[in-house]
Structure formats: C-alpha cells, structure tokens
C-alpha cells in the first residue's frame, strides 16, 4: 500500500515513516510543505495520504486545505488528517462530501501503533476514522437536546460511540469483549431507535451515524 506523508516536524515525520514501513506500507513520498504535498498527491496517486493539518509555508491549516482540494480533484482519495488538536469544524469539512475514505485523528493516537495502523488501513479502504474526542464532543452536545439518544442503553451508547469512530462490528466486538452477533444486535437496535436506514455497508453506516450526530448544527 503506497502512502504519501506530509509532516513538517522532522522527528514526527521520521517516526511515522518508520512506523508505517514497519507495518508493510510503502512510503511513496514524505514531504514537508503544502505545495510539495499537492504535487505529490497529484503525481504519485497514492493509496492513502497521511497529512498534518498545519504545514509550511503559511503554518495555518495548509495541510487540511491541500487534502480537501486533492479530494475535490480526485473524489474519494483516502486522506487521514493528523493534528495536535481536533475541531468539529474541521471534521465536518472533511466529512462534507459524504464519500468516505476520511480520517481525522489526534497525533497522540500514534502512541498505539496497532490502532493507528488499523485506522490508516480502514481509511485507505474507503472507511472512516474519527478521533474519539470528536465523537465525544458530538455526543455530549447532542445528548443535551436529543430525545432518541436518551432511549439508548449505556451499552448501546458505547457501541454508537465506537461505531461513529469508524470501527467495524468485528473491531467493536473485540474492544468490548463480546461476540460479533451481540454487536450486530446492538447496532440494529440503535438504528431502530434513531430511525436511521439500515445498511449492510459498514462505511455507509458510519457516515449515517456521523450525519445523525452532526445534524442541525
């Protein structure tokens, strides 16, 4: 799997390269700046891009803008955005086109190499990887004014949270130490209680949940 990596801090870039290479990713390019990233994304056609939000030369949200532009040029281009802080505002912009293949994680998440690599693979496959913090913020805001959410059991809320992060049933089952069938039952209940359309497709399911949580904002 070919990866384009954009990160301006040498230590982090170096660490990410080593981490990804150790997990059998091929680093097509590891760049430092926004313009370099744009060029790499256009020319190298990677399977997934791992991008830091803040990049030179402007040191504003250059990385995010490059990623969004690249996805406009090549819809569905898998992009995993990393940042020192997560904002719902950015998450919403990334999810706006509704085509999946999007990740948005705190840089801290690389501490857990397995989970991080899993997230990169998921995004590359067209899935979603939303940072738990984004989901928690969405849930806590939503909980204050949403009746259907109150009808969920604590367990169902837990499953909803993990589902919104983009995890598959199998991954959720592993995390909560239950069978996949139990999770399937929970998700069916959640979708019924929130009146969401049931879909067998994992990715579409995640997007539906995220759209539900972010509705009316």
């Amino acid at each position: 799997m070919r990866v384009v990596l954009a990160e301006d801090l040498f230590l982090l870039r170096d660490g990410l390269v080593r981490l990804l290479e150790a997990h059998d990713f091929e680093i097509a390019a590891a760049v430092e700046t926004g313009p370099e990233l744009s060029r790499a994304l256009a020319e190298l056609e990677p399977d997934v891009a791992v991008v830091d939000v803040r990049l030179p030369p402007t040191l504003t949200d250059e990385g995010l803008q490059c990623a969004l532009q690249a996805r406009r040029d090549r819809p569905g281009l898998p992009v995993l955005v990393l940042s020192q802080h997560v904002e719902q505002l950015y998450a919403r912009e990334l999810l706006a086109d509704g085509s999946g293949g999007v990740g948005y994680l705190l840089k801290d998440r690389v501490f857990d190499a397995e989970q991080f690599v899993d997230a990169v693979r998921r995004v590359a496959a067209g899935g979603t990887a939303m940072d738990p913090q984004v989901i928690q913020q969405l849930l806590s805001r939503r909980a204050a004014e949403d009746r259907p959410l109150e009808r969920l059991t604590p367990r169902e809320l837990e499953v909803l949270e993990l589902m919104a992060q983009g995890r598959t049933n199998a991954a959720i089952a592993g995390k909560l130490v239950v069978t996949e069938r139990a999770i399937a039952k929970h998700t069916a209940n959640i979708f019924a209680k929130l009146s969401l359309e049931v879909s067998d497709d994992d990715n579409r399911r995640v997007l539906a949940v995220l759209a539900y949580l972010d509705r009316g904002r």
Partner: protein
Amino acid sequence: MSIETKSTARQPRSGARIQGMALSAVRGLALTFITLPGAVVCFCLAVVSIALVPIGVGIVTTPWVLTGVRAFADRRRLLAAEWGGVRIPRAYRPLPEDANPWGRTFGMLRDPATWRDILWLPVDMTAGFVTALLALVLPLYPLEGFAIAAGLWRVLPDGYWYGFVKVTDQTSAFYAAGLGAVLLLAAFWLAPLLLRAHFRLTGAMLGSGQGELAERVRVLTETRRDAVDTSAAELRRIERDLHDGAQARLVAVGMDLGTIEALLEKDPAKARELLAQTRQSSADALTELRELVRGIHPPVLAERGLGDAVRALALRLPVAVEVEVDLPGRAEAPVESAAYFAVSETLTNAVKHSGADRIWIDMHYAEARLRISVTDNGKGGAVIGAGSGLAGVERRLGTFDGVLAVSSPAGGPTMVTMEIPCALS
C-alpha cells in the same frame, strides 16, 4: 389650503423656539443660583486656605477645600455637557492614595488644573453669572412691558423707566410694550445663545486645551497597567500549569522508564504493565499541554482566523449557538486574540449564569470597527461588576481602545456588545 399647510408646518418650529427660550430661562435661573454663591464661597475658602498654608492650618484645610472646588467644577462640567453640549475634559493629576496632608496639599497646588479652577472662579462669579442672569431676564423682562401696557402703568410711580422708555401715560405704556415685544423677539435668539456663551466661557477657563490629551494619557496609562498586570498573571498561571502538569508528568515518565529498564530482565510482566501506565502518563501530559495551548492561543485562531475560531468555539458549547460572521479580512493577531477571548469569556458567562438555551453571535466589520454582539435568551441581570467575567472582558478590550456594552434587564434577554477599532488586512 396651501397656506394652511404652511402654517401647520411652521408651528412646530416656533413652538420649539419658544420651548428653547423657556428652557434657557429656567436653566439660566438655576445657574444664577448656582454660580454666584458657589463661586464666591469656593473662591473665598480657597484663597483663605492657601493663604493659611505658611502657618500650617492651610495644610490641613487645603486638600478639603480644593476637593470641594473640584466637585463644584465637576458639577459645572456635567451641566455644560448636559445643557450646553460642551465637553470639558477633567484633567486633574492623580494623587497617591496614601499621601499625607502635606503631600496632598502640595500635590494639588503643583497641579496646573488647580490654578485653572481658582482662576475660573472669579470669572464665573462675574461674567458667568451675568450671562446666566441675562438668559433668565431677557425672556422675563418683556412680560413687564406688556403688563405696563395692560394697566400696570397706573400704579407705577411717575417717571418710571422701562428700558429707555419713560412711562407716564397709556401711550408711553404702549411704547414700553413695543419695546418689550422687540426684546422678546431678540430673546428667542439670544437666550439660548447666552447660555451657550456661558458654557463656552466655563469651557475656555476650565479646559486646558491639553485636557483631552491628558485624559488620553490617563486612559492609556490605566489600560497599559491592566494589560501588563493581566499578561503577568497569565504568565504566572502558565508557569504553574506547566510546572505542576506536563513537566511533572514527564519527570514521572522518565522515572518509570528507568524502572522498566530495571524490571525488563527480572519481571517482564510487571515491566509491561508499567509500560502501559507510562504511555498513559505521556498521553495525559499531551492532553494537558493541548488545553494549555488552547488557553494561550487557540490553534484554530492561528489557522483560520477569528470567524472560524468562534465557530469552533461555539461547537464546543453545550448550548445551541448561531454564529453569523461577516469579516472581509483578518485583523492583527493581538486584536484577534483579544476579541476571541472576550467572546469566549462572554460565552462562558452566558452558559454559567444565564440559563439560556440559545445564543446568537454576530460579528461584522463597519466604520473601521470590529463589532461583536453576543445575545442569549437567558434570565438577564448581567452586570459589569467587580469579579464578574465581564469586567475582565472590558479590561481585555480596553487595551485596544475597545468598548463593552451590556444590556441585560431582569428576565432577559442579555445582549453584550463589543467594539474594537482596528484595520483588517
């Protein structure tokens, strides 16, 4: 028909003029009672008190007397502003709060504003008094002329002078009434003019010309002190947070790593357990640093500017917030930061105290000013008081000559408006 419309159109104008004249007369009356006694008493006390300074008594009395003079002058400044629209800036030098009578006396005597006050008093009791008196008498004197024509001349002593008309019989009484009419016409114009002249005179004597500059210097000194205090306090808080938070955690991480190294051979299971704990410590340190950074300068503000930073802030609140932004460019970083934290504090205040379930934020730029209003549908009663979050907001904005206005009747809604003069790029 056309004539009628004309006359109705003119009526309110002459009505307004009569009202203006009457108002001037009443104010003139008030001023004659205030000026003469006030100025005479103040002047005499001030002169006597200052004269007594060499024998010691004056040192005790002078601060009191001069404070009284200042209060009198302040009263007149207020009247000039309210009645005459003449702004007379106050430009007294501040005295140290713990000064002794000696220091206070000489501090006040060294202040040129004190001498301007004392010089103004004799002018006020003469020219000031006369202008006020004329504003009162001019509209009243014609009434006497009319009364004379109406029959008052019969009881007047022979050879009574009304103005320059000697009243002896009905004919000369009519002359008196004519003169009264002319004077009344003049009074329409002159009474308000005289009053204005009175206030201008007060302004010319009391105002230093440098008054506005002095006022500006005072405001700048104050806001600069606030800014320095605030940033010093901020730095102290950051230092403490780093010291007790991230720094301590990193020390713990280093220590744990040492322990893990030692345990690696002896007890690998224990080492692995400790490793997980160490990873958690470093994650906690990062979380703390992130919160700290958000408090110093929110990353979204640096990345996207004020509009999106406030939008991102709104998304974090547990209350529904509508954000309306119309900014054609970005302000300078310090202004953006001040505006952001002002909004942030206002929102925190609203969420904590108002009980609102909806908040509206409007930000736009007009007339070289950044205008921000934060409105909530809560229970109102917010004030800019000591210890309230809004006082902090006011201080923050003050550094940039920004102003804060709060409208918050009991029962709500609360509207907080901020204005910061700035340029956008």
